[in-house]
């Protein structure tokens, strides 16, 4: 899950994150930062995250779906989120 203490900073061209669990810094796409920010407020379902991505971007639905899927895979690899078997993302 997104560690509650994860730090986010939105720059004009990207978002810096600090993961206190792994003591790691990453720079991610602004839209990915928006997803992390939403997850810091509480668990979300994949459709909820898709809705957030659509609201925050001009992406058409198929691309937004692919974007969210790829972003979650990437963030899982960084231990920034956990996707449970019922598609709840924390």
């Amino acid at each position: 899950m997104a560690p509650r203490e994860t730090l986010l900073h939105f720059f004009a061209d990207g978002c810096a994150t600090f993961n206190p669990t792994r003591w790691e810094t990453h720079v991610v796409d602004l839209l990915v930062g928006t997803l992390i920010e939403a997850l810091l407020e509480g668990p979300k379902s994949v459709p909820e995250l898709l809705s957030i991505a659509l609201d925050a971007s001009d992406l058409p639905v198929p691309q937004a779906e692919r974007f969210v899927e790829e972003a979650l895979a990437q963030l899982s690899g960084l231990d920034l989120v956990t996707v449970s078997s019922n598609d709840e993302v924390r």
Partner: protein
Amino acid sequence: MKFAEWAPGKLIKTLAGSGIVLDIGAASIRVRSDSSDLAEALRIVYGEFPVLDHERFCEVSASIQRVGGARRFFHPQVDFEVDGQKPFEPFPADTHLPLLEWGVNWTLAERFNHCLLLHSGVVEKHGVAIVLPAIPGSGKSTLTAALMLSGYRLLSDEFGVVRFADGALLPMLKGAALKNASIDVIRAKFAHARLGPSFPNTRKGTVAHLAPDADSVARRHDPALPGLVVFPLYQAAAETTLETMGPSQAFSKLVVNSFNYETLGPAGFSAACRLIEACDCRRLIYSDLDAAIGTIDRLTESVAARRL
């Protein structure tokens, strides 16, 4: 009174006894040594620094002492000692000042965790601090030295010291370590440059230290607000090229050039983000010092004008 005004014999005697205190702005350093050659080198490089009470608190107490034993007759060496520890093997005795400088820098980088410490030169003009982060060999010290000799205030040629409370940059004012060809470049271009002795055959080649000027020393307790981050890169025969960097890209590059970002964690993250947000960020490729200085002059004036 300044060290430059002391008689050489007095400096040698004090250095060998209670030691001298160098207040470099963000920290104070006590130096002791039985090397008269080091005393003379310090008199040149730190000549503008005031003589201070030797009993005052110092963040670092360092000494350079000649190594005893038979070896001293055919291969004299000196030891660097800090607060009773000897972190390095002895160095050749004729590299006393580089050893002192490296040792003190190493100690500060290890200990100075109440600020974000960047590996960068820092200068200031018109109230705008310019941070010049770079990996070794990028021409950072040469450019920083040239800027000081062209009217900028030097805060440091090695440490960007970012205060957590307000993001201001604190001076950590030491001799600027010039290496190899840059020594002659600076000497030839700036007749008023005050350079200490050259030390050939150090681990980094020939090293000479540029003395901070009187204005930089006088203002070594004045913080400066950051306005520019410029990543310099010297490339022989290259055209002067200035590229705008996006803030997230600059952030990534900045934290790589930090001594203690990894140690600081969240505090370092916040300080680095704040610094980048406060600055215009550029990459500067240069070979011609005049052109590089002119470019930084224009950038600095533009940031200063925006602040009015």
